[in-house]
């Protein structure tokens, strides 16, 4: 049931966007109360603007009536960043899904925020170009969401995260003003507001146009699968590869739990008796690919790899990647629930941290499946459990916190690519002091964001977020189908 203020907001939204582009019936809200993580928060209304002016109207209407507003794309976020933590209006950008311009000669594209990552990849590929950031959810996640989280992906190691590929952004600021940050060229004058905005998780404004840089598809690529006795040995090999001065384009680890799950579903041909495998890809000029591949093989052998298989064909390469991309989903076939974590550590500390993860999960009595971007030091332990077992959920969350603490103590961070969102706000104080957080608060204030503009995200404090804290204690944990 809507309060009077909300009923007014809905009426105004309907007149600005058209009646069919505003939802408010309680049953319609059910589809918008979650993202791909474990929290739930139900909005009061959902608006589907078609352009920047309509987004600005949504922002102004909610601001005028002191109603929270939260931007959302496909809802594949893994930190609760698109949850309506205090109710209010969800501003869903999926109608804004046009590729507005693609200039192959200058390697630039301009797109709307609701464009699916893979759709841009496909459009660029037609010109022999690539939009490099490739989160594993690329078949469904939007570029607006990629901007919000500064999304990475398996190929971030060589190409960098989303921020390294965004030239400029048209955004609606929290006061409803429409402006551009950055532009169509590299290195525009001024403080890097573009770079600040990317990764700000929809708390500083809502992106309405995105100008990205495309890169040429590399001339040559070599994909390898190295097979190790243990996760630790594989972790040592990661450091050994980097130490040799080789930066693979991807360096992914899958442990025996993942291998078993993937093989159960897909029969890729991963070695079932391996403690862990590394999926390693090098790309570039044909001369450097040969040299790099030889270095990778040597580094893996030196660290005790039982076998290093080099994909002989494009089909074999695609097959090896298929298993990696299906890995997270496959976990869902062997456990009722799992909790996907995202931490990051210096690459040289991977072996000891992975040992710590194994010891901690064993002590808590859970099994863990590891599938992650080892070359970036970006861990994704998946803790397997059954939420129907009394107390299991609380124990898993506690274990998740301990694993995050392990990452922080190793000189790492609480999130490598998923974001802080609502889920990890309370961990921010583990890595940042009061002055660091105060500086972040100043950014929010400088952008004119009130506490109702995507509330209860990133910063550990915030009025009216108590409800979200209470929800923390009784949240439901992930169902299969979590994206990474």
């Amino acid at each position, binding site marked *: 049931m809507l309060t009077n203020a909300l009923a007014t907001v809905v009426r105004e939204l309907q007149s600005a966007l058209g009646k069919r582009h505003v939802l408010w019936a309680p049953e319609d809200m059910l589809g918008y109360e979650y993202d791909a993580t474990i929290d739930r928060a139900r909005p009061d209304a959902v608006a589907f603007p078609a352009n920047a002016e309509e987004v600005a109207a949504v922002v102004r209407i909610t601001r005028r009536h002191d109603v929270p507003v939260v931007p959302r794309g496909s809802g594949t976020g893994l930190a609760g960043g698109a949850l309506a933590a205090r109710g209010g209006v969800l501003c869903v950008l999926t109608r804004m899904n046009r590729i507005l311009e693609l200039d192959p000669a200058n390697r630039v594209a301009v797109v709307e925020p609701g464009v699916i990552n893979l759709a841009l990849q496909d459009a660029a590929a037609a010109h022999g170009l690539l939009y490099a950031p490739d989160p594993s959810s690329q078949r469904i996640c939007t570029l607006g969401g990629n901007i919000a989280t500064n999304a990475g992906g398996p190929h971030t190691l060589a190409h960098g995260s989303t921020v390294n590929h965004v030239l400029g952004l048209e955004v609606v600021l929290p006061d409803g003003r429409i402006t551009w940050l950055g532009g169509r060229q590299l290195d525009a004058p*001024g403080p890097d507001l573009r770079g600040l905005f990317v990764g700000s998780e929809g708390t500083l404004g809502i992106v309405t146009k995105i100008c990205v840089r495309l890169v040429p598809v590399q001339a040559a690529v070599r994909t390898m699968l190295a097979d190790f006795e243990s996760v630790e040995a594989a972790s040592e090999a990661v450091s050994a590869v980097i130490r040799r001065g080789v930066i693979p384009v991807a360096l992914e680890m899958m442990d025996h739990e993942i291998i078993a799950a993937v093989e159960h579903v897909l029969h890729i041909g991963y070695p079932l008796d391996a403690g862990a495998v590394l999926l390693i890809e090098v790309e570039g000029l044909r001369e450097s690919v040969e040299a790099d591949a030889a270095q990778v093989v040597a580094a893996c052998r030196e660290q005790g790899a039982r076998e290093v298989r080099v994909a002989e064909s494009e089909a074999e390469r695609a097959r090896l990647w298929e298993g990696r991309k299906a890995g997270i989903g496959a976990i869902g076939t062997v456990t009722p629930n799992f909790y996907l974590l995202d931490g990051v550590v210096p690459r040289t500390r991977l072996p000891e941290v992975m040992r710590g993860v194994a010891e901690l999960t064993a002590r808590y009595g859970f099994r863990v499946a590891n599938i992650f971007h080892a070359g970036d030091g970006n861990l994704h332990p998946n803790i397997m459990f059954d939420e129907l077992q009394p107390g299991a959920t609380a124990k898993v969350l506690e274990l998740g916190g301990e694993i995050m603490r392990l990452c922080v103590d190793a000189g790492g961070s609480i999130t490598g690519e998923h974001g802080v969102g609502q889920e990890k706000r309370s961990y921010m104080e583990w890595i940042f002091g009061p002055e660091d957080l105060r500086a972040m608060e100043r950014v929010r204030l400088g952008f*004119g964001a009130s506490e109702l503009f995507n509330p209860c995200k990133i910063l550990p404090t915030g009025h009216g977020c108590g409800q979200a804290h209470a929800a923390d204690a009784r949240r439901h944990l992930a169902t299969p189908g979590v994206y990474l």
Partner: protein
Amino acid sequence: MTAPSATDPLRAALPPDRERRAEGYAIDGVRPAAAFRPASREEVAALLAAATGAGLVVVPQGGRSALTLGRPLQHYDVALDLGGLDRVVHYEPNDLTLTVEAGLTLERLQPRLAERGQYLSVDPPPHDGVTVGGLLATARPGAWRGHLPDARDLVLGVHVAQADGTLARSGGRVVKNVSGYDLHRLHTGALGAYGVIVEASFKLAPLPEATSAAAVRCTQIAQAEAIALDLWRQALAARAITLLGEAAAAAAGLPRAAHVLCEFAGVRAAVERSVEALRSAAANAHAPAAGAVDAEPWRRLRALAAERADGGTEEEMVLRLGVPATALRQSMEAAEQRGYAAWGHVAAGSVLVHGTASAAAAGELRALAAGYGGFLQVEAGPAWLRASVDPFGLGERELVRSLKAQFDPTGTINRGRWMEDV
């Protein structure tokens, strides 16, 4: 000029031997009332707190190579020399990561990294005397930009001393991190507007196995453009593809003619093939064969690209245009028609223009760049020029101002360099 006693609170805030003679710190001919060279980040913070308390304007400086970037200062009370912060805090070669203090220069840093076969892949103007803090605060691209990630891509985190005397940090030392706002990006290109960078962490790159540079002398700039775009479209080990107009070529020590200047870096076989590709591209465009060059033209172009203090005269200016690669030639021709030396880096989409200071010419070229969806920044020039032409031409001014009000409400750091009172 502030009365000498006004800077006493700063003297009280720092150990006695931190003060320097103010004569050595003039900017645009204006001498500050006092100059200090702190030895730690805490001392930088203490100096800023004292200055804010006393209502003084502080101008942070490292290599002093970008002091005429921005509007001329209306107030200049205190020079903050960051040269005392020059330590390597943490170097992890096996992780390809580095944390250094802001006052360390590239010319001192790079040899240390080279010992481990690594480098910070930047070539900022005007030379490697640029400090790490200046590199980030000015964020000016070099010839490698677009082929390699630049400082703004490589920075992993910073520590900053803020105007209120507090120290804050963002990011970290890990190569992938999305925790909290990336304030290190806000400070990139900000000329200290929101705080003084005192420490920064970077991703490093392995040094290339081989490098090679070559120049092709062309009959006209269109021929040079055809070769440059041809090379850019090929899969080569290019680290720089630069178009030179006649005057720029002469300034770089080459014959007075349009040129394509290329640098290749990578594994030896790839570099050798790239040099061959340059020969073929030149032949296809009916240009003479490429001649090998050493690092000298690059050194001269870098020096020319920024600072009059390096031998220029008072009446010269340097402009940087950001335009699409396919508009590089037209932008260079427009500058040459006005009597300027012009050169352009294809992958960065940047054109540099050097010559006699003129507000009219700067305005016309800015309009030209805007027509291509690009921009123009005045990189260096006399104070009168920087007072009459907005050096930055920012599209978004209000946020720059409102963030300044949050981080430095009294305008302690570099007041007026962005816009009046900011």
